[in-house]
């Protein structure tokens, strides 16, 4: 899991790493997807927070496989804001990670019409800044999914 490309010029909204979420955005630069898990109650969560949303304890980081399935999605066909407007139509999806939590992302490098709920996907990253790697998703080849649920 080290599929990282570097954006020539990042013109989309740029996430701002802070003391809580820095490990998440930094991991992306290295091509790793991380989420949080609670050492006390084992609850897993996304997005990064300074507490476990279930029990309130302090969560720890865990590595993900970078695989998941499409929980739901849409094909955005109208959007006024650049640069998104120049990329229409594109897929925005909620990915159900193999580890459990849902995470939003784009499914890239595919015909938007080919996306289906339940389709397996794999993560890749775009380096948006020195400290920010943004996760994206691609449809996995059929049959190439060792951790199928």
């Amino acid at each position: 899991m080290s599929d990282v490309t570097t954006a020539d010029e990042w013109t989309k909204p740029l996430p701002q790493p802070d003391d809580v979420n820095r490990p998440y955005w930094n991991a992306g630069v290295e091509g790793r997807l991380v989420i949080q898990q609670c050492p006390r109650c084992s609850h897993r969560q996304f997005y990064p927070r300074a507490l476990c949303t279930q029990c309130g304890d302090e969560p720890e980081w865990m590595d993900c496989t970078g695989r998941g399935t499409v929980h739901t999605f849409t094909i955005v066909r109208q959007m006024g804001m650049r640069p998104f407007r120049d990329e229409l139509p594109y897929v925005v999806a909620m990915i159900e990670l193999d580890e459990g939590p849902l995470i939003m992302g784009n499914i890239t490098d595919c015909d938007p019409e080919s996306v289906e709920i339940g389709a397996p996907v794999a993560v890749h990253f775009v380096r948006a800044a020195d400290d920010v790697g943004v996760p994206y998703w691609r449809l996995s080849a059929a049959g190439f999914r060792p951790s199928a649920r």
Partner: protein
Amino acid sequence: MDRTPVIVGTGLSDYPKAPHLDGVQHHVLAARRAITDAGIEKSTLDGYVGVGGSGGMMIDDAVTMAEYLRIDHRYIDGTMTGGSSFEFHVQHLAAAIREGLCDTALVTYGSDQLSRMGRMLGTGGFQRPGQRVTGPIQYEAPYGNSLVGAYAMHAMRHMHEFGTTSEQLAEIAVGVREYAMLNPHAMYRDPMTVDDVINSRMIADPLHKLDCCAITDGGGAFIMTTAERAKDLPQLPVYVLGAAGAQTHWNVGQQVDFTSCAGALAGPVAFGRAGLTPDDVDMLMFYDSFTITCLILLESLGFVPKGEGGPFVAEGNLKKGGRWPLNTDGGGLSSCHPGMRGIFLIIEAVRQLRGQAGEAQVPDCRVALCAGSGGWLSCIGVAILGADRP
């Protein structure tokens, strides 16, 4: 002293297009009309509730508006849960009036969204490109989801799990349009068919242009007081029978169930307080930002079992003459949606319960349920209103 909370006055500003009014003036015009409708002296108002944040240049948050309107309040609330704010306000005000925190309160809203921005359907991006984003939106902003897309993801999952169809969703828009044709002020009044909806341009799959609400100007206001005070006022009082609110998430990426909403939490509380069930309800005022919003509210509030909403609406149950007529003012889908529509749900329900709805009148309307949806099916506020004393 009977402190049962009642609504005794309502007012609408000018809509759907009012280039002569800015956002604040929508609040003001609606407030003046509500005060006149209630037959009270402005000086008797001792509570103010409102919410700004339609994004205009005019600051219209609760404290600014209380100052502008000059209401010497001893109770103020500016709770902001998006479009459902006003159903939450009913919940809060009902408690405040019962408790004696105030006697007579004014609630207002106003927005010049259409005149200010023109039509921006589906362009709902809230961040500027290249700009650093902080807070939870940073996990979504890089992906260019649209406001329509957030609801579309609900519709897509609902279709996947339950076989709901675009034709079924379109029936909701068609039924609301039929009511809009009875409202001379409504934004869209031309006859519309299911085919018109599903053949309109796709904005974010599976939602078409005509699955989406209008963008308009507009403002609204209502006045709540005690049943005791209402005895001396001209309008039939409308009783707050039960009100409740709940939240599952704010940003859509944190939604826990894309086929449901917090109505499943708030609904039973509101019905419990009212001592009623869906069978007792005569008409519905749902926040129809999109057709799917209505379907999910209908199911989550228990009017139909989860997953059965599609066939149910296709049978015409939400249309004029149906079991639960929906959005008799023409709704946000066809009449008036200036950004946060929740206040119009209350105002139209009051019109129905007073028997003042003319051609759109639901026969013998005694109980109306208002369900606001704020954010992205995030914060659901439910207010059950009645013509009869609880």
